């Protein structure tokens, strides 16, 4: 049996109930209320749009919440991890530099071991001097020749300590005592210095010129070389100069002996 049929008597009673009708002034009253409400509603609409309602109200911009939160998280992550990443890179670089893996090629002074066998003329001689190895006898002769042509020995040179570098030794040079016979025969210290300095300058300028010839675009300047490398470069350069100095001293000793012998013979002859 259907629900409606089951309670048909009650349903009939309910359907027969008198229908209420709206009063005569219903429409006018409604119109009045609408006219009253309309300006209020227009005014209240902008007031409603508070931040809270915009985010969580019925007409909410709920989709913006995850987007904004993701953006904020992204910014925070970048701001935190980017500096960390940079510092890691820096530490890696410094460790690599300290281990000597990423050394830049040295353009002047001592050349790295990789370039020792290069075909640049005159480089081999310098490298031999730099490394501190004793040069081969043939090269020794060449060096001696070169120094003999330009070098004028000085007696005072032998008195310098072996560990002093060229620049310091120049400053520390004391002029020879006047009146002594030995000093009369010797060239003045300034001239000797110039004479001694010439081959070194020649060699350095030759290397620089050769490097310029290989890589004309690269300018050899201090900013290209990092501080760490600079230090190593200076050390190597000093050692190279020291080696040169040692050779010079040996040569000077030999020469002074010869001169002394010559002087002795002259004195004896007189």
């Amino acid at each position: 049996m259907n629900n409606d049929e089951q309670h048909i008597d009650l349903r009939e009673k309910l359907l027969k109930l008198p229908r209420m009708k709206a009063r005569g002034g219903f429409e006018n009253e409604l119109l009045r209320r609408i006219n009253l409400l309309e300006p209020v509603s227009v005014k209240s609409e902008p007031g409603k749009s508070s931040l809270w309602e915009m985010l969580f109200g019925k007409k909410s911009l709920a989709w913006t919440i995850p987007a904004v939160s993701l953006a904020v998280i992204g910014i925070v992550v970048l701001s935190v991890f980017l500096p960390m990443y940079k510092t890691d890179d820096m530490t890696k670089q410094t460790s690599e530099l300290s281990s000597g893996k990423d050394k830049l090629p040295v353009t002047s002074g001592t050349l790295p071991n990789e370039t020792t066998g290069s075909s640049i003329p005159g480089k081999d001689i310098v490298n031999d001097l730099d490394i501190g190895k004793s040069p081969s006898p043939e090269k020794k002769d060449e060096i001696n020749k070169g120094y003999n042509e330009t070098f004028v020995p000085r007696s005072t040179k032998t008195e310098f300590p072996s560990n002093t570098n060229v620049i310091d030794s120049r400053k520390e040079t004391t002029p020879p005592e006047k009146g002594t016979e030995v000093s009369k025969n010797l060239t003045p210290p300034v001239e000797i210095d110039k004479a001694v300095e010439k081959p070194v300058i020649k060699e350095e300028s030759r290397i620089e010129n050769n490097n310029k010839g290989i890589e004309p675009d690269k300018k050899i300047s201090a900013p290209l070389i990092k501080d760490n490398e600079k230090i190593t470069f200076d050390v190597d350069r000093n050692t190279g100069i020291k080696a040169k100095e040692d050779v010079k001293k040996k040569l000077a000793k030999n020469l002074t002996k010869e001169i002394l012998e010559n002087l002795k013979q002259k004195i004896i002859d007189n």
Partner: protein
Amino acid sequence: MPEYRSNTDEELILMFQNDDVEAFNEIVFRYKNKVVNFLYRYTGNREEAEDLAQDTFIKVFRSKHLYKEIAKFSTWFYTIAVNTAKTNAKKKSRMSTMSLSDYDPENEKDYELKDPGFTPEETANAGIENYYIQKAINSLDEDFKKIIILRDIEDLDYEEIVKITGLPMGTVKSRINRGREKLKKILSDIYPYNEK
């Protein structure tokens, strides 16, 4: 307004959506008695029913853009009316709770029972039986009351009630059945001239 008489409810609301105020007047003309009757049976008070009916029309006026053609206009309209009635009932229950909590035994005037809202004239016109029927409807729970009114007084079909209330068909049917049984029981208890 005679040119609007031939239009359906759905056409009228679409015309009103296009700022045709005359179409809204036609809607008011068609639905004012229906909604007043529904709300009167729901509240049991004529003045309150008329106020709520006006509130319903104001809501229609303000939220005309929310109506979509997929539903019948009557369904949408009754949904607004039911929600307005429910909101009013909640307000009333809150008010009554407050007045009870503020009850002062020395001043018993503050304690007021629910006013059925029937004037002697109305009672005379509707008849004694109708008076008791309305009293029985008023005493029903909200869930049963609105469904009984929509089905047995407004004579809406089950499909429409399902759409208005948002309840499943089975729930609607069972509530109508249980509501009728409750109403019968209440009537048999309160109606003194009941045939046994």
